[in-house]
């Protein structure tokens, strides 16, 4: 199951949905809003989603992971809206009989979500600047790219100067 959420993510409530008597391992990933990126100090993030497509693509990724890794359960929730430092932007959880599969599936889901699901984030910096975070590779269907934007890639991102 994959869902876009406009309200704060509640990890404990989500994790109870992963319970299964046959599951021996549960791995979760949380993406937190960090106070810096590529050397710039971040004040907050804004997430925007093309909700119908995001939920369709996300559901496909999660169902694919369940099948591929033989999971008991898997879930992913992604926030939209304005998030402050320390808030949870995305939560992924996977339960499986053994930990190999739970780790691999959790990693697979967050990687695929970051690459394929139509969600965008805009960083607002302490200095008043802001910018959409992306890398050009992401736009190529089926192509994988580095886990995080790199300085070289980020120069392609349009920077919108905030009003003084």
């Amino acid at each position, binding site marked *: 199951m994959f869902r876009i959420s406009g309200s704060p993510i509640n990890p404990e409530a989500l994790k109870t949905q992963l319970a299964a008597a046959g599951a021996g391992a549960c791995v979760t990933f949380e993406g937190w809003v960090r106070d810096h990126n590529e050397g710039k100090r971040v004040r907050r993030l804004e997430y*925007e989603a093309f909700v119908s497509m995001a939920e*369709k693509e996300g559901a496909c990724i999660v169902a694919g992971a369940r099948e591929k890794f033989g999971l008991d359960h898997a879930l992913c929730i992604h926030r939209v809206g304005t998030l402050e430092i320390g808030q949870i932007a995305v939560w992924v959880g996977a339960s499986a009989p053994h930990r190999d599969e739970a780790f691999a599936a959790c990693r697979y889901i967050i990687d695929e979500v970051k690459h394929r*699901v139509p*969600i965008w984030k805009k960083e607002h910096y302490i200095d008043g600047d802001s910018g*959409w975070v*992306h890398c*050009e590779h992401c*736009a190529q269907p089926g192509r994988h790219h580095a886990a995080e934007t790199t300085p070289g890639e980020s120069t392609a991102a349009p920077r919108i100067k905030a009003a003084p």
Partner: protein
Amino acid sequence: MRKSSNVSTETRNIHLGYYAVLREQRGLSEERLATAAATPRALYEELRARHGFRLGVPQLRVVVNDEFGSWDTPLQEGDHVVFIPPVAGG
């Protein structure tokens, strides 16, 4: 099947959705547009020329009626088209 010589002169009403940097550059989230563009590629180039979008086709994907589509599939009357800037969830 329509001949492409005809397609290029027809006008279709297309529903456009904009997200992220394209939404900001366009200044709105959605619009209806009558266009002679026969394909998503032609439509994007038309919009890019008009609004100065900085992203090029190789950096985008296109969604037609809630399915990822190809740039060269003919557009149909009433299609809902969204150009997808590079994503960055998480």
